[in-house]
C-alpha cells in the first residue's frame, strides 16, 4: 500500500470522527427547539449550531481529501509527491480542528475585536473558524493541491478524471479566500460570501465528488474508464452549466439588482435536470450488474448518492427556488430540510461508499457483506428522510403563518414557536435525529468489524483498475 493511501485512510477515519461530532451537536441543537431554556447561558444554541454546521463542512472535506489521497497513487501508479508534508499537515489539520472545537465549546464567543476574530470566532456564517485556523485551512488545501498537481507533473501523465480534478482544485482553493475579506457593506459582503458557500457546494464540490465517484465506479465494479470519463465530462458540463449561475437564488433578498431573480430562478430550475440524468445512469449501472457487486455496501451507498442527490437537491430544492415562493421560504426550517437532505444525498453517501471501498482493499477482504451495513444503511437513510420530512412540515408551517400571514414580524415569529405543527415537527426531527445517530453507531461498528476475521492476512496488493 502507498503511504498516501495510508494517509487517505487516516483522513477517512478523521472524517468519520467529525461525522460523529456533527451528529452529536446536531442532536444537541435539536433539543433547544423542544426545550427552549436548555443549557441557557451555559452552552447556547448558536454555539451548538456552529459546531454542527462547521462539523458538516469538515467531515466532508476530510472525506474528499482522504478519497483523493486513496485514489491518486493508484491512478498514477506512484507515490504522491510531497507525501511527508501532507502527513505532517494531516496532524496539524486535526489539531487545529480540535482546538477550534474546544474554543467554540469553552470560550464560545468574544467581543467585537480583532482578538475575537483571530482566536475565537471569525463571525462569518459556515466559516466561523477563527482567522488563524482559516489560514491553516488554506495551507492544507494548498499542499493538497500541490500533492495532486505535483504528482501528475512528476509522473509525466494524467488521466481524464485527474485532469478534471486538477482543474477543480484551483477554484476550490481560490474560492475559500472569500472567507477572509472584512466588508462593512452587508449586501457586498453577502454577495461575495455566497461565492464561497454556493460555488463550493454546488460547483467545485459537485465536480470533486463526480471525480471521486468516477474512481469509485472503476475500482468497485470495474467500470470502463472510457465510459466513466465520457459520462463525467457530460455531468461536469451540465452541473457547472446550471450550478454556477444557480448562485442567483441566494441573491434574491440581499440587496442585489432585480435581474438576479431571473438568472437565479432560471438556472435553479435547470439544476434538477442533470440530477435526473445521474439517476438514469445509476439505474443503468445497477441493472446491468443485477444489483450485484463484491462490495455491496459501497455499491448501495453509490446508488443512494444518485437518488439522494435527486430528491434532496432536485425535488426539495425546486419546491422553494422560484422567487415568489422563496420570498416566504428562505431562512425557515424549509431551507434546513433541503440542506439536510441535499448534503446527505450529494456528498455524505459518496464519502461512505469510498470508506467501504478503501477498507475492503486495505484489509485484504474479497468483498464485503453482512447485516450490520444493512442496518446502518436503513437507519441512516430513514433518519435523514424523517428529519427532512419533519423540517419540511415545520418550514411550510413557518412560511405560511410566520411569513405569509404574519408578515415576518417579531410577534409572528414568537407565536410561530408555539404552534402545534411546528412543535410536533421539532419533536419528530429530534426522534429521527436519534434514529440517524443510531445508524451512525451501527456504521462505526461495521467499519471497525470489516475484515476482522482476516486481520492476520497480508493485505492484497491493490490492482490498478481500468487503466
Amino acid at each position, binding site marked *: 500500500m502507498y503511504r498516501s493511501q495510508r494517509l487517505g485512510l487516516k483522513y477517512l477515519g478523521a472524517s468519520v470522527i467529525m461525522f460523529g461530532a456533527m451528529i452529536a451537536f446536531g442532536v444537541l441543537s435539536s433539543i433547544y427547539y423542544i426545550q427552549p431554556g436548555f443549557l441557557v447561558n451555559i452552552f447556547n444554541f448558536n454555539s451548538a449550531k456552529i459546531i454542527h454546521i462547521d462539523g458538516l463542512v469538515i467531515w466532508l472535506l476530510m472525506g474528499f481529501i482522504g478519497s483523493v489521497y486513496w485514489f491518486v497513487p493508484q491512478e498514477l501508479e506512484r507515490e504522491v509527491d510531497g507525501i511527508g508534508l501532507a502527513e505532517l499537515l494531516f496532524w496539524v489539520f486535526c489539531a487545529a480542528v480540535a482546538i477550534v472545537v474546544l474554543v467554540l465549546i469553552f470560550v464560545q464567543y468574544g467581543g467585537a475585536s480583532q482578538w475575537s476574530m483571530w482566536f475565537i470566532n471569525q463571525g462569518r456564517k459556515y466559516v466561523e473558524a477563527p482567522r488563524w485556523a482559516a489560514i491553516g485551512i488554506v495551507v492544507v488545501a494548498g499542499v493538497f493541491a500541490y500533492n495532486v498537481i505535483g504528482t501528475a507533473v512528476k509522473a509525466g501523465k494524467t488521466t481524464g478524471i485527474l485532469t478534471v480534478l486538477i482543474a477543480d482544485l484551483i477554484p476550490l482553493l481560490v474560492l475559500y479566500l472569500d472567507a477572509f475579506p472584512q466588508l462593512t457593506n452587508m449586501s457586498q459582503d453577502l454577495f461575495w460570501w455566497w461565492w464561497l458557500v454556493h460555488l463550493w457546494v454546488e460547483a467545485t464540490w459537485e465536480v470533486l465528488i463526480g471525480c471521486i465517484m468516477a474512481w469509485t465506479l472503476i475500482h468497485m465494479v470495474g467500470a470502463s474508464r*472510457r*465510459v466513466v470519463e465520457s459520462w463525467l465530462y457530460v455531468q461536469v458540463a451540465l452541473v457547472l452549466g446550471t450550478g454556477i449561475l444557480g448562485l442567483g437564488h441566494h441573491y434574491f433578498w440581499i440587496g442585489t439588482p432585480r435581474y438576479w431573480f431571473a438568472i437565479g430562478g432560471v438556472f435553479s430550475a435547470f439544476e434538477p435536470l442533470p440530477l435526473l440524468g445521474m439517476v*438514469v445512469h445509476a439505474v443503468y449501472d445497477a441493472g446491468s450488474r443485477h444489483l450485484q457487486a463484491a462490495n455491496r455496501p459501497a455499491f448501495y451507498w453509490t446508488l443512494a448518492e444518485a437518488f439522494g442527490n435527486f430528491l434532496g437537491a432536485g425535488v426539495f430544492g425546486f*419546491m422553494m427556488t422560484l422567487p*415568489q415562493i422563496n420570498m416566504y421560504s428562505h431562512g425557515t426550517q424549509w431551507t434546513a430540510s433541503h440542506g439536510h437532505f441535499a448534503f446527505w444525498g450529494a456528498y455524505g453517501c459518496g464519502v461512505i461508499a469510498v470508506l467501504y471501498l478503501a477498507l475492503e482493499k486495505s484489509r485484504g477482504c474479497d468483498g464485503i457483506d453482512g447485516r450490520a451495513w444493512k442496518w446502518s444503511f436503513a437507519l441512516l437513510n430513514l433518519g435523514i428522510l424523517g428529519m427532512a420530512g419533519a423540517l419540511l412540515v415545520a418550514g411550510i408551517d413557518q412560511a405560511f403563518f410566520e411569513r405569509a400571514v404574519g408578515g415576518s414580524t417579531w410577534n409572528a415569529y414568537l407565536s410561530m414557536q408555539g404552534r402545534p405543527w411546528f412543535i410536533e415537527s421539532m419533536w419528530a426531527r429530534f426522534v429521527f435525529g436519534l434514529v440517524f445517530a443510531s445508524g451512525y453507531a451501527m456504521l462505526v461498528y461495521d467499519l471497525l468489524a470489516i475484515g476482522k476475521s482476516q486481520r492476520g492476512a497480508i493485505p492484497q496488493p491493490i490492482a490498478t483498475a481500468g487503466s
Partner: protein
Amino acid sequence: MTPRAMVETALLLGAFVATAGVYGLLYCLWRLRNGRGLKIGSYLSYTASAVIAAIVVALTPLHAGWKVLIAASTVGYLVIPPFTWRYLTRLHRWERKSHDPGFAKHADRHLAHLFRRA
C-alpha cells in the same frame, strides 16, 4: 400570491419534479426488464408530471416567465431518460466493440481504406 397559493404552488412544484424522477426511474427499469407494467407505469408517471405542470401553468399565480420555464422543463424531463439511456447504451456498446479483436481488425481496415482514399 396568497399564503395558501404559496404553499400549494410549492407542493405542486415539488410533485412535478418528483413524478418526473419516478418517470425516469420506471423508464430505466422498463428498458432493463422489458416489463409491460413498468412501461405503463413510466408513461403514467410522466403523464402525472405533465398534468401537474399544466395545473401550475393554469392555476397558480406564478409570473408568466416561470410558467414558460415549467412548460419547457416538462419537455426536458420527457427527453432526458431516453436520451441518456441511448447515450449510455451506445457508449457501452462502443466500448465492448473496441475490446473485440474482430471489430478492431475491421476498424483498422476501415482506417487504412480512409487513408488510401485521402
